[in-house]
């Protein structure tokens, strides 16, 4: 499969937030305004690509070689926790402006299931290294697209008369359902 097909598939037809349900907790919680959503999306994409790159090597060079593939969950989550920490330190030291913009989101990312899920799907589908990187990039961009669109929709919701019990998470999840329906319209163009 070509790299472009993978990118397109993860962005639209198999959007990780709306068809794989990955990273839904922050998707609901951090989508209050567009700016924050964008910051979170960038941080997720950034960490996703880095962890995918590291996890690919951990899996293929260490786990497969010593026949301990069942340790993948443990090693992936440790890699993710460690990478988030390192990224935070590096960004704070060398890119202070970037740190102001996305620093607050970095610690939250360790428990963002999109990051772990993406590494697992990458291994499951047996992608080569470059394909894995593109998959991670597309996944992060797709997630960003979904959360920014959601934030935009929720900004309009202020003017809508939502039933009291449905406010907050309830209506957000139903909107996500409708968005998911819309994204299913892309199905069949390419498949991942």
């Amino acid at each position: 499969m070509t790299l472009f097909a993978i990118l397109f598939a993860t962005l639209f037809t198999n959007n990780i937030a709306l068809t794989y349900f990955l990273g839904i907790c922050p998707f609901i919680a951090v989508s209050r305004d567009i700016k924050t959503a964008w910051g979170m999306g960038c941080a997720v994409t950034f960490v996703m690509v880095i962890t995918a790159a590291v996890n690919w090597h951990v899996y293929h060079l260490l786990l497969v070689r010593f026949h301990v593939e069942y340790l993948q969950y443990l090693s992936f989550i440790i890699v993710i926790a460690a990478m988030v920490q390192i990224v935070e330190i590096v960004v704070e030291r060398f890119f202070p402006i970037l740190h102001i913009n996305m620093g607050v989101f970095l610690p939250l990312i360790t428990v963002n299931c999109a990051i772990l899920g993406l590494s697992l799907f990458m291994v499951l589908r047996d992608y080569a290294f470059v394909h894995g990187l593109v998959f991670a990039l597309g996944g992060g961009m797709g997630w960003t697209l979904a959360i920014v669109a959601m934030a935009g929709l929720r900004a309009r919701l202020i003017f809508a008369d939502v039933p009291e019990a449905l406010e907050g998470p309830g209506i957000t999840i139903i909107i996500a359902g409708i968005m998911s329906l819309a994204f299913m319209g892309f199905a069949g163009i390419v498949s991942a």
Partner: protein
Amino acid sequence: MALGICSTLAVTNRVANGIAMGLAVVFVTVASSVTIALIRKITPRRIRIVIYVTIIATYVMIADRYLKAYRPAISEQMGPYVALIITNCIILGRAESFAAANNPWRAFWDALGMGFGYALSLLIISVVREALGFGTLMGYPIMGRNWTPWVVMSMPPGAFLVLGVFIWTLRSVSKPKA
């Protein structure tokens, strides 16, 4: 209720998957809460999150190996979502807010209650989705012969819609918190 919904949505298209996921979460929550409560006095505060995550990941691995060995069909369908129990916010949330400050016995009951509450939501959502999406319950047809399955219910949008309505119902029934 807004916590830990990633896996809720992904595996609830059939009741059997929902139950398996619920039980796995109960097991992992209880086991890791008790472990964390046991070592709460010797855990350095600064690196506690990494320690918690490692403990949780270990139990998730056990649950996953068990499912693969004894329930291969269900394990096949749930795929990588079993692993995503690790990042289920409920477990880490309980570890951080309760198990880290209480004795193992109390942590055990707290985790048990939390786990079963979560499993119950999974069960309700998966019953609705399987009944509407496939017209079956645990694989047995229940909706009569002329039932046309709502295909959308077995697909991703259905998960969001059912969960949204579920939260709506819950919050209408229970008194709104001031």
